[in-house]
């Protein structure tokens, strides 16, 4: 950790992320304090300039821009982190199984991974987002709730995002499993599940952490692109991506509507990338 913070860009990224997380967690109290909220329409004050009542002005239907940015940070961070986590779990499972079991299991899982990597990402995400979950037999009221909509975006991105971790974990597992302590554990009668979780997992976890940190930035970029296209987070719930799609038609009259959400995405993704890069350097001193 100390080595990480000695690297100035990574330290910068870590500080920005801490601030962003604090802002996202404190979004509701902050909004209450400023007397703004993300959902109230004020049709008398459409596209109002910055004022004491609306620190950053309002959008095309008179909603407070700052309040929406704050709520958007909750949505974007929640999706980025939980998708990265789900993808990392999936990838670790696939990688451990393939690496430890070897043989046919390995061949099948790795061909599957190759196949998913070869798919065109965004077109596939567009199709997945357009699927009507009701036809899959999921109850409608769950899907219409905001949580259900977010979960859907998380699942869609995680379904294609696990491949990097799977490959890393498989490679690490292959090199760890030839060590004698694994043979010893097998000789003592430990089952495959116990060996994978107790003995292999702790030894392959550091590349997973680096890859997951680096993936959060990419996931936030994907989410914002999907939401921008109208396929990710659905309005009225604000996300930085869907705020930009509203701003596209108003570039001439209200450019700041497009500037703020984009800057937030940029800053967040940049910070995750810098921290991920710093982690990589501090865990692997050979690459300096």
């Amino acid at each position, binding site marked *: 950790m100390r080595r990480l913070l000695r690297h100035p860009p990574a330290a910068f990224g870590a500080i920005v992320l801490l601030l962003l997380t604090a802002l996202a967690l404190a979004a509701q109290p902050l909004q209450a304090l400023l007397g703004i909220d993300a959902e109230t329409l004020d049709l008398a004050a459409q596209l109002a300039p910055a004022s004491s009542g609306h620190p950053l002005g309002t959008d095309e239907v008179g909603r407070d821009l700052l309040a929406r940015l704050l709520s958007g940070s909750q949505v974007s961070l929640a999706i980025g982190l939980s998708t990265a986590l789900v993808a990392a779990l999936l990838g670790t499972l696939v990688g451990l199984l393939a690496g430890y079991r070897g043989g046919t299991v390995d061949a099948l899982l790795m061909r599957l991974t190759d196949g998913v990597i070869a798919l*065109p990402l*965004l077109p596939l995400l567009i*199709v997945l987002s357009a699927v009507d979950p009701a*036809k*899959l037999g999921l109850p409608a009221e769950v899907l219409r709730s905001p949580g259900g909509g977010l979960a859907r975006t998380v699942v869609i991105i995680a379904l294609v995002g696990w491949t990097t971790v799977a490959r890393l974990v498989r490679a690490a597992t292959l090199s760890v499993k030839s060590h004698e302590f694994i043979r010893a554990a097998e000789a003592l009668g430990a089952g495959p599940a116990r060996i994978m979780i107790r003995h292999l997992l702790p030894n392959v976890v550091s590349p997973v952490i680096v890859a997951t940190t680096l993936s959060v930035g990419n996931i936030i970029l994907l989410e914002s692109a999907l939401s921008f296209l109208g396929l990710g987070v659905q309005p009225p719930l604000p996300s930085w*991506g869907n705020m930009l799609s509203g701003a596209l038609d108003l570039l001439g009259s209200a450019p700041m509507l497009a500037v703020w*959400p984009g800057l937030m995405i940029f800053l967040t993704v940049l910070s995750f*990338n810098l921290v991920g890069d710093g982690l990589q350097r501090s865990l692997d001193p050979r690459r300096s």
Partner: protein
Amino acid sequence: MIRPLLLRLAQAALVLLVMSFLVYGLMGLMPGDPIQLMAAGSPTMTAEDVARLKAVYGIDRPLVDRYWHWLAGALGGDLGFSRLSAQPVAEALGPPLRNTVALMTCSLCLALLLALPAGVAAALKAGRPLDYALNLTAFAAISLPVFWLGLVLIMIFAVGLAWLPASGVETVGDGGGGDRLRHLALPVAALALAGFGHYMRYMRSAMINALSQDWIRTARAKGLSWPQVVLGHALRNAMIPVVTILALDLGTLFSGVLVTETVFAYPGMGKLIYDAVMGNDYNLALAALMLATALTLAGSMLADLLYRLLDPRIRHA
């Protein structure tokens, strides 16, 4: 050399087949079907009309049946009829494909033209201020949402300065070469900057790796000048991983192009895929998605092939 290539081809064909079935199945799960959409648009249609149309389009049959029918046709070169654009799919794909290829080629060339020299320069000055500056620029570039970069470029150059058009491929009534180039300028700039970040980082790390090898010292020891060593020896070796990654990246580039096209209302494959999926135009969406998958697969096969061709150690292994 031939055997692994054939294996890759077989694997690519399998991925395409699975993808086509997957997409076909997923499209069946989308809200509504094409005939319901038609019926909603024309109140005079009766229930009999709907049933008749469903039979005409074959939608009354089970999914697997329809998929076989489509596959047999597609393998015979008949991609079907696009309902939205009211012409055969092959014809509907033509102009958007040309537009997208133009956009991809121009932005890739511009990105490489900037990124490769920058990567070499950063590697030669590794750890120095120039390296830091270039590295930070690259990090910023890969962290920018490419569609937002497009929005900012429109704000500055189209709305603010009014130098360049914000959208489309040509001005109605003009359409000359210069006019088309002016329309390409902003989307190409946005995509090229996004690509710059990735390619510069690849080039830098490949070059640093090459420069740290023993044979660099050997080349110096036998009396070659530093420029000869850098350009003739290090660069040639560093290009192997870079070219490979470039080919592997074709899919990512394509995804970036899709969103960028939306921002600039550029009538390419991105808009086509989006419209076809949203409008339930099965045949058109399937063909376009298959094309995108084939492109990504071709990229990864090309990477494999180039790697073998460029690196004699692997070619003769």
